[in-house]
């Protein structure tokens, strides 16, 4: 049994040594001995996974052009949404979209202003609280958003007295909700560059602290900060729980509202926001690979 296998495998290896070496990181199936599945298995797994994601999206797209009870294919729902055929029915959507965009902007600004300086400071000077900071930043992941709202409701009655009850005040809650993601993204970048060495070099060359942070450290953290901002925007645009329980309007609560009146329109918007999220994701990946290439 053992000898038979040994006899069988060397020819396969001998015929393919260059490709084996070239693809050793990808563990290609032509390596003979490898964990990679056979091409047939590849096709089946890829097709299965692809269908798993493609069928719901395709169904979503097909639903947006369905002609209601009369059946048939129609572009009328798209015309309703973009041609102003909805009248006042589109008001919640435009409101929600505006609020969500404003919210993601404020969230990113507050998050960057609070988190990045704190993380740089802890990284440079206070190694002991680093664990505490990490724990505090990751805690919102484990607390369900509904449970968070129960605590936030009394807080927001005070916030409403101070800042008014505009939708943008939700950004204070969203900074907490997005903190684990933005922390992870920034931290990954922070440990990858030698922040302490950079700061010492800048200081020894006579730069002030402000110049050190602004001109030396921040440009090196650009990729992490960008990733943190992107992921925060994505989380804020998809947030429903807090906004709905605190009775504010954002994109998601508007979608639920509109879907009770006209499910076609809400599905069109969902399809468009899915595509937007996909584009954001690809943009994020592009930015990540580009800066990695320029560094090496």
């Amino acid at each position, binding site marked *: 049994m*053992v000898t038979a296998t040994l006899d069988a495998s060397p020819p396969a290896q001998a015929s393919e040594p260059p490709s084996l070496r070239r693809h050793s990181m990808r563990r290609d199936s032509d390596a003979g*001995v*490898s964990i990679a599945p056979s091409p047939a298995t590849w096709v089946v797994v890829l097709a299965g996974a692809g269908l798993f994601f493609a069928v719901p999206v395709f169904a979503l797209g097909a639903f947006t052009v369905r002609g209601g009870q009369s059946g048939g294919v129609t572009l009328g729902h798209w015309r309703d949404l973009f041609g102003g055929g909805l009248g006042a029915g589109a008001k919640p959507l435009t409101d929600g979209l505006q609020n969500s965009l404003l919210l993601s902007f404020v969230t990113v600004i507050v998050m960057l202003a609070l988190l990045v300086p704190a993380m740089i400071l802890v990284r440079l000077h206070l190694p002991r609280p680093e664990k505490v900071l990490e724990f505090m930043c990751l805690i919102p992941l484990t607390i369900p958003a509904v449970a968070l709202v*129960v605590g936030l409701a009394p807080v927001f009655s005070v916030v409403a007295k101070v800042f008014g009850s505009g939708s943008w005040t939700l950004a204070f809650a969203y900074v907490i909700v997005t903190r684990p993601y933005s922390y992870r993204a920034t931290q990954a970048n922070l440990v990858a560059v030698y922040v302490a060495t950079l700061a010492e070099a800048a200081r020894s060359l006579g730069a002030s602290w402000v110049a050190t942070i602004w001109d030396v450290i921040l440009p090196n953290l650009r990729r992490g900060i960008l990733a943190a901002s992107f992921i925060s925007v994505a989380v804020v645009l998809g947030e429903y*729980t807090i906004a709905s*329980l605190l009775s504010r309007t954002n994109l998601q609560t508007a979608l639920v509202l509109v879907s009770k009146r006209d499910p076609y329109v809400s599905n069109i918007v969902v399809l468009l926001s899915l595509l937007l999220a996909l584009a954001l994701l690809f943009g994020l990946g592009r930015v990540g690979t580009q800066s990695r290439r320029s560094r090496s």
Partner: protein
Amino acid sequence: MVIVLLPALEALRPQWAEANATLGGTPATFWLRVGLPVLAPSLIGSLPLLFANAFSAYATAAALTSQGSQIVSLQIRTALSSETVLGHENLAGALALGMILTMVVVMSMYSVVEGRASRWRW
């Protein structure tokens, strides 16, 4: 689940497959004797995470149902914002505390299993 499993899959070393092959194993023995046992802690560890995710879900249930409160998160919604049953904010607080305690238990289970799983990482 994918995010938890990806690092574990990355940690499967090609050398193990080669060792398995030189010792006369088939791909089936590789997966049964090496691959799955190494992945087992990560697979088991993803179960508490899936539980936590499902347990704290709110948005889908809230959007799909307009009547009744079948799950804890919807019960909290009712206690917070019902128009017919007033003065139940304390109930919402108690339910939320229960959720947080459940999450603490689940997440400590996860960190125990995760400690075992990280043994095979690079």
